[in-house]
């Protein structure tokens, strides 16, 4: 006779946004395998847009419910629904909508047909939502892992790029290392307080004064290390530039927006709300973290030549700003951090949408030289990128200014040196944003001819021939290796010795590729293309694989990407002129904070 097991009552509304995203993802995966190949790409994008819009609607419904009836906990107090969690859900739903728009153009361009990228992005986003609404440390951990495991796969998504796999492996090793540290932190906090539930931990801490709190402090610091890895705060930021550079560009934007939002949401809830009593213990640590994060992020971004790496370091700098709001440990600080995350989401997804477009086929033209004279070729794209970069720098009439202003105002009350450091880092950061903006508008020596030249250059290359296309279709490394020297011979660089098998040196191709793209843009002449290829390949002592030769087609802006960029710019500028609604949204989200 088996006794009945008491199961908790589950209030569906509490986890409805997550259910919509996860259920939608599974549905899309099932439907996607049933329809024809030609329909699949379009169907996946449309489905993702509908699902994310539904998740957004449900999140807003949650918000209305919480505003009317107040916050509550559900699923045996493991999940909390309050203004804070509803805010995070809205943010994540918007992020997935925009990412789906950007990913559509990317997937078509790279010939990666299938719903998998959208599915993984939705699963990952549901992890971020779980982190935002977790009321138990183990639920935070589960959310963190759902977020991260899907992101590891997304980082490795483009299997034709060696850099993508390398990024995934680095992210995976360091990410699971930080998760293990995080779990050990949970175990120690559980041992010290007797519970893993956030409300019970807070209750325990407010009633008891621990005679020896070494165990608790050790657990707290391990939790902080785990979070700091995920938000890329400085001593734990090593993975960020490589992963941001190697991952496919739409994924990088998604990662920067959603992983940061989810991890910061949990970090704010756990530290400000649960460990609020112990703020004198953790505030100095956050203070130090914020200072090094702000300064290192800004100064290292200045010396980068790859725009994705530059944006990676700038995201580290932004993480420092959000830490400012955490350090304040007040309602004002939390609402400033929330506002920052929301504004940053639009800026960073928009920026990486532009980077995706400029990266062109092969997703490799990310050297800063690729942006020279962009305004001549694509005036609207350049304008949008300039606005997004200026917003990240904190220019007036954008959300970037209000975001920076609020976190600095929150911290200036009690930590003036920190606010000063933040302003200095913002000034340094403005330099590298402006550098790209100025480069886009500077008339390059002979770049004016590029639009006319790009098309013939594309035709002149024999990669349009059946052999190369067949090689791509088989996707076999060996086939690539056998055919890879043909295109080179065809364009007048027969002196390249077929030295090593191509799969031993694929990662070098990224460097070769960047140089190749640079030389393409600077020379702009199809005749010089062959020698440029030859020298680029000879310099590195490596052979090029087909992926390398394929990149740098003409610069096309897919309509959906244009819509995503337009939306991001519109939100950034409109809410910059009219900051009231979002500010009060973030403020109310903080007021409805539980407990």
């Amino acid at each position, binding site marked *: 006779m088996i006794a009945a097991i008491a199961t908790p009552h589950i209030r569906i509304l509490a986890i409805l946004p997550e259910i919509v995203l996860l259920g939608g993802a599974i549905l899309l995966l099932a439907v996607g395998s049933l329809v024809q190949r030609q329909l699949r790409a379009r169907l996946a994008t449309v489905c993702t847009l509908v699902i994310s819009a539904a998740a957004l609607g449900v999140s807003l419904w949650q918000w209305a419910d919480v505003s009317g009836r107040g916050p509550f906990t559900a699923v045996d107090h493991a999940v909390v629904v309050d203004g804070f969690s509803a805010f995070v859900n809205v943010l994540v739903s918007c992020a997935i909508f925009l990412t789906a728009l950007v990913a559509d153009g990317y997937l078509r361009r790279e010939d990666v047909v299938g719903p998998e990228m959208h599915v993984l992005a939705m699963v990952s986003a549901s992890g971020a939502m779980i982190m935002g609404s977790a009321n138990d440390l183990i639920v935070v951990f589960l959310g963190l892992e759902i977020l991260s495991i899907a992101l590891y796969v997304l980082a490795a998504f483009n299997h034709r790029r060696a850099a993508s796999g390398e990024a*995934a492996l680095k992210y995976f090793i360091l990410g699971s290392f930080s998760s293990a540290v995080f779990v050990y932190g949970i175990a120690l906090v559980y041992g010290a307080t007797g519970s893993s539930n956030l409300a019970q931990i807070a209750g325990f801490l407010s009633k008891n004064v621990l005679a020896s709190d070494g165990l608790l402090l050790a657990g707290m610091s391990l939790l902080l290390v785990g979070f700091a890895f995920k938000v890329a705060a400085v001593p734990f930021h090593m993975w960020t530039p490589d992963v941001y550079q190697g991952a496919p560009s739409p994924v990088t934007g998604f990662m920067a927006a959603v992983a940061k939002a989810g991890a910061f949401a949990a970090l704010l809830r756990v530290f400000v709300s649960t460990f609020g009593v112990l703020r004198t213990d953790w505030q100095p640590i956050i203070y130090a973290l914020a200072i090094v994060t702000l300064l290192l992020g800004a100064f290292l971004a200045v010396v980068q030549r790859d725009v994705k790496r530059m944006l990676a370091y700038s995201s580290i700098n932004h993480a420092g700003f959000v830490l400012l709001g955490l350090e304040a440990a007040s309602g004002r600080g939390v609402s400033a951090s929330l506002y920052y995350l929301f504004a940053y989401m639009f800026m960073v997804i928009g920026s990486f949408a532009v980077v995706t477009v400029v990266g062109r086929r092969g997703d490799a033209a990310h050297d800063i030289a690729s942006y020279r004279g962009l305004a001549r070729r694509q005036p609207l794209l350049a304008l949008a990128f300039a606005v997004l970069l200026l917003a990240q720098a904190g220019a007036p009439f954008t959300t970037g200014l209000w975001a920076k202003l609020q976190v600095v105002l929150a911290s200036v009350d009690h930590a003036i040196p920190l606010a000063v450091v933040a302003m200095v880092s913002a000034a340094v950061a403005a330099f590298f944003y402006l550098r790209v903006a100025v480069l886009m508008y500077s008339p390059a020596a002979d770049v004016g001819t590029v639009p006319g030249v790009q098309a013939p250059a594309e035709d002149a290359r024999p990669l349009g021939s059946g052999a190369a296309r067949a090689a791509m279709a088989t996707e076999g490394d060996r086939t690539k290796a056998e055919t890879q020297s043909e295109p080179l011979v065809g364009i007048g660089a027969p002196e390249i010795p077929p030295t090593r098998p191509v799969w031993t040196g694929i990662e070098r191709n990224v460097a070769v590729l960047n140089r190749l793209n640079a030389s393409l843009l600077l020379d702009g002449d199809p005749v010089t293309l062959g020698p440029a290829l030859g020298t680029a390949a000879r310099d590195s002592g490596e052979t090029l694989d087909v992926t390398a030769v394929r990149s740098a087609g003409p610069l096309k802006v897919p309509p959906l990407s244009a819509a995503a960029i337009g939306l991001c710019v519109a939100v950034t500028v409109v809410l910059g002129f009219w900051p009231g609604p979002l500010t009060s949204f973030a403020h109310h989200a903080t007021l409805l904070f539980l407990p």
Partner: protein
Amino acid sequence: MSIGPAWYLSLAAVLFSLGAIGVLIRRNVLVMFMCIELMLNAANLTFVTFSRMLGDIGGQSLVFFVLVVAAAEVVVGLGVVVAIFRRRANTTADDLHGMKG
């Protein structure tokens, strides 16, 4: 001599440190995976020990969550490794240096 909870906690701490050091100094990706597993299982041992000390079954149930997550993580990790090292001869992390800045 009886073996008290402090022994289990110490053993867990030692295992966790060994795992952490292993991830930092070993260069073979598969060995790094094993070290991460060691760290997770050290956390599990800590959970179980505290659960016995506190007389609370909750801590032991948390172990199942960690086990499942660890399994999922390994599946994805090995998938990534296979995808990368089909192109390469060995699984040495130092050879992955295509990106620098």
